[in-house]
């Protein structure tokens, strides 16, 4: 069975919510929309305080080529444009909307009917995706319209649908495949049309056997799209790892893109969002969020309007358990810690995870005993112990020579370190510094 070749770890899967149906969460009282919910320039607000908005009204325009628009997920009045502490842990500008009723933009098709066909051209599809503010739903939040317009000199031959969900705990993509397989298939066809190719592979790890079987039965009559079961290993959902697992090709180090090896990767949640955006004219205003944790009373998969405060999700799941030591937006390997429950759900919030104190507290760090477990775990073939040491002593040249920019911050190294060293903390710091040095150097030349 296929998988990627270098490194990788096997964290406890803890998929507590795999058989919980997606439930719809009630509307919040106030929705908050941070202006940077994606990689690239922040969006620019196009509403003012006091404006009335409806569900689906565009409230912020893209702030550049690499940016995405933001739409209101509620109807009501713009209360203020202020700042909020989001999952990045920093205070960022955001639009606050007080909710009144639930009035939708009339252009949105709110029915559940499955639409199979439309006669939009390639450009029109991209335009709709762009206008709907669709970004990568896997967590990186890369604007989708940019990703669907690969550089001209690259020949794309394979579309890979990322349904791996290798992060422990999270089941949002899994549930989406079980409950909306037809929509996903239509979405895949739309992307194939945009890319002008006819081969798509859905990569799924074998722990989602029911999803593999369902998709296979749905695809029995469809040609060009196949489901590829993958051996369970973290971080298979990493873009580069998935491409290697599916096609055997390795993406060269940055600044190379997956397009350089003829692949485009889209998350299965993104595919669903593309379906809704193109066929239903519905902007990205909702997403599936897994709310989970070992001691959470009612772990669940929720369909949540963007901007809903995390506290509302936590409450629905039975409140924050007393032993909670960490509140995480995303999965346990790559998610971001939240300072408190006030942060809003944004486009990249794939899960809300509550980790008990006993697991959350890091143990005391010890000397590196050079056991080489981090080197064996690193899926990018790096030497985390060396990079961390270089970072600690500020030796940015050494870090750059040893490929630090290839690091995908998957956390394998740190999660295996028997000395409990904060390897990734240091590597992140060095990556940040070396990235700055490289940018400065490029700007000079």
């Amino acid at each position, binding site marked *: 069975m296929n998988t990627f070749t270098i490194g990788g770890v096997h964290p406890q899967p803890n998929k507590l919510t795999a058989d919980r149906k997606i439930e719809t969460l009630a509307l919040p009282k106030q929705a908050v929309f941070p202006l940077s919910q994606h990689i690239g320039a922040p969006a620019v607000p196009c509403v003012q305080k006091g404006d009335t908005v409806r569900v689906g009204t565009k409230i912020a325009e893209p702030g550049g080529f690499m940016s995405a628009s933001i739409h209101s997920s509620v109807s009501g009045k713009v209360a203020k444009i202020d700042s909020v*502490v989001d999952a*990045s*842990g*920093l*205070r960022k500008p955001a639009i606050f909307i007080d909710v009144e009723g639930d009035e939708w933009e009339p252009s949105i098709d709110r029915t559940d009917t499955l639409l199979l066909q439309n006669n939009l051209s390639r450009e029109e599809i991209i335009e709709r995706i762009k206008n709907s503010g669709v970004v990568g739903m896997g967590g990186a939040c890369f604007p989708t319209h940019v990703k669907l317009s690969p550089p001209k000199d690259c020949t794309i031959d394979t579309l890979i649908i990322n349904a791996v969900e290798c992060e422990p705990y999270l089941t949002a993509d899994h549930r989406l495949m079980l409950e909306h397989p037809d929509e996903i298939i239509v979405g895949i066809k739309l992307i194939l049309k945009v890319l002008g190719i006819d081969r798509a592979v859905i990569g799924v790890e074998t722990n989602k056997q029911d999803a593999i079987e369902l998709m296979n039965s749905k695809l029995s009559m469809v040609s060009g799209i196949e489901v590829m079961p993958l051996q369970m290993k973290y971080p298979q959902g990493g873009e580069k790892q998935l491409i290697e697992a599916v096609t055997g090709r390795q993406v060269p180090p940055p600044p190379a893109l997956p397009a350089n090896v003829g692949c485009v990767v889209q998350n299965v949640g993104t595919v669903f969002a593309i379906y809704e955006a193109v066929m239903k004219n519905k902007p990205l205003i909702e997403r599936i969020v897994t709310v989970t944790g070992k001691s959470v009373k009612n772990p669940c998969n929720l369909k949540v309007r963007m901007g809903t405060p995390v506290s509302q999700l936590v409450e629905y799941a039975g409140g924050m358990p007393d032993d909670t030591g960490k509140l995480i937006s995303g999965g346990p390997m790559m998610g*971001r*810690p939240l*300072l*408190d429950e006030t942060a809003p759900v944004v486009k990249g919030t794939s899960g809300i995870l509550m980790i008990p104190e006993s697991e959350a*507290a*890091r143990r005391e760090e010890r000397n590196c005993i050079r056991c080489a477990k981090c080197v064996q775990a690193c899926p990018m073939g790096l030497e985390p112990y060396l990079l961390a040491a270089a970072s*600690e002593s500020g030796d940015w040249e050494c870090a750059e020579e040893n490929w630090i920019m290839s690091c995908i911050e998957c956390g394998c190294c740190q999660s295996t370190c028997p000395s409990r060293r*904060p390897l990734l*903390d*240091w590597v*992140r*710091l060095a990556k*940040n510094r070396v990235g700055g040095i490289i940018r400065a150097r490029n700007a000079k030349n």
Partner: protein
Amino acid sequence: MTFILTAVLVLGLTGLVISLVLYAVSRKFKVEEDPRVARIIDLLPSANCGGCGFPGCAAFAEACVKSESMDGLKCSACKKEVMQHVAAIAGHTVELGVEKIAVVKCNGSCGNRPRTGIYDGAVSCAAAALMNGGDTGCFYGCLGCGDCVKACKFDAISMDAETGLPVVDQEKCTACGACVKACPRSVIELRNRNKLDRRVYVSCVNRDKGPVAKKACAVACIGCGKCVKACAFEAITLENNLAYIDPDKCRLCRKCVDECPQHSIVAVNFPPKKEKTESTENN
């Protein structure tokens, strides 16, 4: 006996040959160096702090000898007299400005600024600053991981275990600026030493709006502007909800200190006032 003699002879001869080779090599590869450079290096602190902008003290000494004047050449770690001596050796004259000292502009001790979270990652302010706002509600203040302590080549900064804030030893600080560069949040500033090392400064870098700042820290500057009005010398400016006292205009009258409702303006090394002894001295 011959046994010992052989050993002595062999060793002695080997030593002689090696020393001859060493001598020859050292003569052959001798680098001609301006003797003044060595004399200047002797005067410099040899901390290689980089405060002068050169890779180390030796490079600085060479630059002093080579350049036309002492413009732009200043070892911030040296006392005035030493710099004058250096200039004299290099054949220049030098006019010295005010001596400076590193000042930590944050008073967010555990009491003033309650901790809102627990940070147990890498012990590095730079790493902590990258990830999020740190373990307090203030996204601007000191992170307390001691990057400045590590950066200081003169052992002049230490962490106060009680407040969790760095403390500058005013005897040892040479104002080389290494800590200023190391601090990812620009909490440390080089300010004039003034007479008797007296200083008045805003001990806060929080640029949040008043209520937000006040919620995060009891002694945060809330940008109310009272100090600006109180100052008779136009030394105080208010920008981004934060007051700043220009060290060159400030006359150390301490009117602003009394005026500040948040006690975020600090006066150091003044004799205690008569009635209320507000000792905010943190050095």
